[in-house]
């Protein structure tokens, strides 16, 4: 194979072949072979902490609360009103919204605008730039995990990476049907999708942005949102 032709003035770059030669020497492999035994099996009985038969909504709410997120259980009919109240509480002036997968949220943007709050069209500007001066990001989720109180937020055409990261408050809508029992279930679900079609970013979010770097004192909101509200819609 062709050694890399770098324009650098320094020594030629290590090639994949040279790099692997060192690994094979250490392993005492004369060539790369497929493993003679299969990768360790992840036994469900051992690794799983949460099952489909558990009360997933309750477990999710409990765990999400334990990591510092503010959880409310509501019915779909109350969604718009609850979000409106939250936005009033934080005196929001500008927000970003992406709740496309929740049919019950139809009309959400209009109802927010009627309160005199600007709904910023984040999709019109490339990158995260339009989101820095907003007060809240309102999103749906791609899944939720009961085991750890985690929300899964992926990037795609309708979801900027920034919505759950840049604004100081994240309001997430989790439908009961979104809640998976265990982390294992999320990755099993992803295994059905070829990796070349995976979103470039999968963020598992378990709590508000946190640090304990200064004397172990817990401070939230150091880079990402300091407050995360989760609205669990129990009837869908």
């Amino acid at each position, binding site marked *: 194979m*062709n*050694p*890399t*032709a*770098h324009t650098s003035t*320094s020594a030629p*770059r*290590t090639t*994949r*072949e040279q*790099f*692997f030669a*060192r*690994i*094979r020497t*250490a*392993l005492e*492999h004369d060539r*790369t*072979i497929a*493993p003679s035994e299969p*990768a*360790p099996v*992840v*036994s469900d009985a*051992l*690794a799983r*902490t949460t099952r489909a038969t558990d009360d997933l909504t309750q477990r999710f709410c409990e765990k999400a609360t334990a*990591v510092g997120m503010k959880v409310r259980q509501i019915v779909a009919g109350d969604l718009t009103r609850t979000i409106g109240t939250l936005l009033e509480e934080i005196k929001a002036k500008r927000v970003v919204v992406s709740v496309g997968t929740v049919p019950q949220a139809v009309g959400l943007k209009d109802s927010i605008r009627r309160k005199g709050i600007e709904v910023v069209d*984040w999709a019109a500007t490339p990158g*995260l730039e339009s989101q*820095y001066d907003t007060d809240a990001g309102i999103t749906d989720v791609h899944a939720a995990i009961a*085991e750890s*109180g*985690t929300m899964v937020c992926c*990037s795609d055409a309708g979801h900027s990476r920034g919505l759950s*990261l840049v604004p100081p408050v994240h309001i997430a809508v989790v439908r009961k049907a979104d809640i998976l029992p265990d*982390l*294992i279930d999320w*990755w*099993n679900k992803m*295994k059905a999708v070829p990796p070349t079609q*995976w979103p*470039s*970013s*999968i*963020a*598992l979010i378990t*709590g508000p*942005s*946190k*640090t304990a*770097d200064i*004397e*172990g004192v817990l401070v939230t*909101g*150091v*880079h*990402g*949102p300091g407050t995360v509200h989760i609205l669990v819609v129990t009837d869908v």
Partner: protein
Amino acid sequence: MTATQSPPPTPAPTPQPESAAGAAKPHVAPGPPPGHVHPLIVSLPYSIHERADKATADPQLQFFVTRATYYKDQTRKKVFAEVYGERYDQMRELAGNIKQHTLDYLDHYLGEWIDNAEANGVKVHYARDSAEANSICLEIAKANNCKLCVKAKSMVTEETHLLPELEAMGCETVETDLGEFILQIDHDAPSHIVTPMIHKDRVASAKALTAALGVPYNDEPEVIARVARDHLRGKYRKADLGISGGNFLVANTGSVVICTNEGNGRFCTSAPRIHVAFVGIEKVIPGPEHLSVMLKMLARSSTGQPLTVYTHTMTGPKRAHEHDGPEEMHVILIDNGRTEILRKETREMLRCIRCGACLNACPVYRKIGGHAYGAVYSGPIGALITPLFKGLANYKDLPQASSLCGACYEACPVKINIPKYLIQLRTDMVGGKITGLPDRIFYRVWAASLKHSLTYRLGGWAQTTFFRLQAKLSGTLAKGEKYSARGWLKDAPGPVKGWTSQRDMPTPPAASFRNWWDKEHVRSVNPKAAEALKASGAGEAKPAARQH
């Protein structure tokens, strides 16, 4: 298959809005004050004593370190007991097996990861050592005309000492993890692999912020965090290069996974146009189901959290239909001595997922803190891998910096038998004549004397007499009957000077247990009375005990 080429010339950087914070100040690489000693750059061969002495005489440091580690150690135990109970050990076994299996076939799995990552549009680079890793990164920065770099926490870039090089080429580089940021502006260095700033308090942090950013002094942690947040947001908005490490590489998807709590990792890998990840070759695992296991173990072992706040899985740069994300994603795979450790005898050490649990559990680490280890990786795992990375002769004190109590082994989520390998290193030191001649003669003589009863007793007598004499001279030997009278051996002269200057040791009683048993006990047992006791069926323990 071809090795990845350097990035193609790229169009001029996206124009940035004028309003971005901090736009007015041209960048001047902030140098450390004159006479500054970087805590992790030491002269070799490294001697632990100066720093260890200083740390053991610094109660404040020990308080900080203990406060940060003891609580986490307790939380880890509590959380695993709740979640996995009896299965905790099997989970450690499984996580250890997953890493071991991947390492045993590292050529296969790393190859698989590279193929998948490239299919996802990732540019993969191969770095034999620190110098090559840094120069690849500089080339990427140069080719893309990068002027401002935001960097997430990465131990590998500490290893390669990347920052000064980026700064020197004119690319301002900012650490964004709160702890790392404060360390950077204070010209300090991390002392713990997970919580880098545990040796520093709020006062020092606030002073550093005041000095570097000109903000009024305020040492409330909330305020410190807010000042840093505002400052760093200005940087994210303008940055054209983002650097991260990587906690896991998933072979059959080509993904890179990073685990952070603050969200800076997501910013650094999402906001800038170019993302470069520095990742050690040992980070690869086979598939997503294995990722589940490793993630379930990592954060719980680190801090007791079920998962870190943000577990960010990146599978290629921004996809065509997506709204944002980096246009280019580079991964620099780093060997830098890892293939040395990969050989059979030491392979297990590469299982390490850098959770920090062994540091949190270690009584020696709590006493001496991270900087005493004189290298990027501290604590038990540092004592193990630093001598292998940098040469045993250069770090000959580190394998000794352990009481071999085994707390690290019990805490390790991938079951690295750290004490066993520390002993192996000590053996290697003697075999490789790295241990000094006097020491070797001493242990030879000691070993020989243990083999014969006469020399053993003679040695025991000499030791007892010397220790008690010392204790008497220092006035610590309490008066009392001879089997319990104890004193303390401290600051003894001669060959034990070095050893006793840092440790106090109780002196042995004048007579040994054996002597005591023979003289005071056995002799006093009236044979007739013993017979009578035996006949009555009581006191069976006594004859049994005699056999010892």
